[in-house]
């Protein structure tokens, strides 16, 4: 049966043709550096009083992508938004902004010799960032850390004798908050061979690819409503936080022949992500770009009917004969319920229980999302809703995740 489902999945291009949120909408596919790919949130395995949030951007990166290796955009704002009172509106925002530097413009090389530290004079191209915390009610902005180095690209063995030792120097800790920004092994696992004439069947197609990761570990009481972590056993709206990541760019860009471009105007959101796969398989093509510009608080008003009546099970039946349950006359209120735990407003937010006593072992999708969670199988199974397990045949990442911050695996090398 499983073999038949996998064979059938070969024919459901729109179902698994994209990774979690990699190149999921037409416009963002043209602006790779600000394309959200995945968001993860879990209670810290090393300190249960902290929450780990991973926001990944820039999809499907080849390790051998020199000489101008991938980075974050200097012109964009990368943000993680947290709703701590259940109304689907951000109460706290963490914002990363980046600046690139080069030491020597008279060479094409990313590094001009072997690199053994982030301060190596041989590391020619570098990037730094500022991390701010914004109170969305008062508008108050506070700088948590600034001039923090981004981990370099894993160019290859000739450049980095011990890449991870150098990369982990980019971990910064300030007042209980830990941050990391830089390339990591792509943690999302899925079979993308659907592009090869629908030839899916358990191939680990994201193995060996990298992604740009923002990793944050924050004390839970700093993101809980009122600055107080809810007591154990609480079940109200404030017992969970809802998380989404976004990227924004300035409204106006002027290209010039005489000098570099100029950017003007307010920042406009161009990408967002909470749950995996929502914009891929729930939102149809006509609204995908609009989804990326909109806010979770408006998800029901804008896209609610798609959630009540998703396309996925119809396609599974049409193409696979998967025998998925028909959408009940009352619609998929079960999915709405998953998007609205503990009385919170339904929205595409990754919600996680933050009450006292919660541990990393309890942080599994849809209560947060662990790096190891097979969300493709979970969501296909939920969508099909017939009691059978539906999967793509890829159940785990190729590299093990680490036990300590930043938890993601070291990126694939450009010259292993």
């Amino acid at each position, binding site marked *: 049966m499983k073999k038949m489902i996998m064979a059938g999945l070969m024919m459901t291009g729109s179902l698994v043709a994209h990774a979690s949120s990699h190149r999921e909408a037409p416009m963002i596919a043209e602006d790779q550096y600000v394309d959200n790919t995945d968001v993860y949130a879990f209670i810290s395995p090393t300190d249960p009083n902290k929450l780990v949030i991973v926001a990944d951007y820039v999809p499907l990166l080849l390790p051998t992508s020199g000489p101008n290796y991938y980075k974050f955009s200097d012109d964009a704002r990368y943000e993680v938004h947290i709703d701590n009172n259940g109304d689907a509106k951000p109460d706290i925002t963490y914002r990363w902004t980046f600046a690139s530097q080069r030491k020597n413009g008279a060479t094409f090389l990313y590094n001009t010799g072997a690199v053994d530290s982030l301060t190596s004079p041989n590391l020619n191209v570098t990037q730094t960032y500022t991390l701010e915390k914004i109170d969305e009610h008062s508008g108050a902005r506070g700088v948590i850390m600034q001039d923090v180095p981004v981990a370099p690209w894993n160019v290859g063995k000739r450049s980095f004798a011990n890449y991870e030792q150098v990369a982990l120097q980019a971990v910064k800790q300030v007042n209980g908050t830990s941050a990391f920004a830089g390339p990591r092994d792509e943690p999302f696992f899925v079979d993308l061979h659907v592009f090869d004439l629908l030839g899916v069947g358990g191939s680990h197609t994201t193995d060996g690819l990298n992604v740009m990761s923002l990793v944050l570990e924050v004390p839970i009481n700093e993101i809980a409503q009122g600055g107080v972590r809810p007591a154990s056993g609480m079940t109200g709206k404030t017992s969970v936080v809802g998380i989404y990541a976004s990227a924004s760019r300035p409204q*106006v860009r*002027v290209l010039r022949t005489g000098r570099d471009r100029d950017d003007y105007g307010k920042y406009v959101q161009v990408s967002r992500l909470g749950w995996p796969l929502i914009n891929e398989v729930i*939102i149809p093509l006509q*609204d995908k770009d609009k989804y990326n510009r909109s806010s979770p608080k408006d998800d029901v008003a804008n896209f*609610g*009917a798609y959630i009540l*009546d998703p396309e996925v099970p119809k396609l599974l039946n049409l193409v696979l004969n998967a025998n998925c349950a028909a959408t009940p*006359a009352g619609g998929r209120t079960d999915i709405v319920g998953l998007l609205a735990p503990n009385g919170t407003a339904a929205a595409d937010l990754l919600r996680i229980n933050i009450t006292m006593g919660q541990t990393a072992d309890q942080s599994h999708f849809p209560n947060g999302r662990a790096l190891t969670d097979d969300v493709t199988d979970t969501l296909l199974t939920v969508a099909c809703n017939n009691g059978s397990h539906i999967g793509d045949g890829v159940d785990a990442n190729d590299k093990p995740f680490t036990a300590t911050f930043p938890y993601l695996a070291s990126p694939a090398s450009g010259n292993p």
Partner: protein
Amino acid sequence: MKAALLMLAVVAACHRHEEPRPTPKAAIAPLAHATQADLARELEAADRRGTWASVRQRWQGQALHWTVTRYRSLCGAADACFVAPFPISRPAKHGWMPQLELSAGELARVEAGCGAAEQCQVTFEGTLRELTASAEQPTALRISDVHIVSATHG
């Protein structure tokens, strides 16, 4: 200065993509066909022709008499009541769910008619106060002065 002029030129150029705004009318002319299906057809046409502004102009302020599906989990408070404008159509062709602004008495009528049912049919009269519809933003409707005509289930 040069940069400012350039920016103005860019902004002006961007504005030219939108059709000219129709002249505001003193009163909204009632539409002969003002069902949710009529609105959906006009929005689909706007998506092809860029006539978003005229759709907004024609529809905002219209008195509506619609029958919709009320889902208990999405319409449980007077200020947070979203209803499905179309039956389950396998799959949904439109994502928008109108927001009904209900007075407390009207919400009570909904709840009395629908009981504990997960979904029920609600017929209402109200005014389309705000229609968000453009090439850039997803469609959203806010309907105010809502009077419940009937609420039934089963």
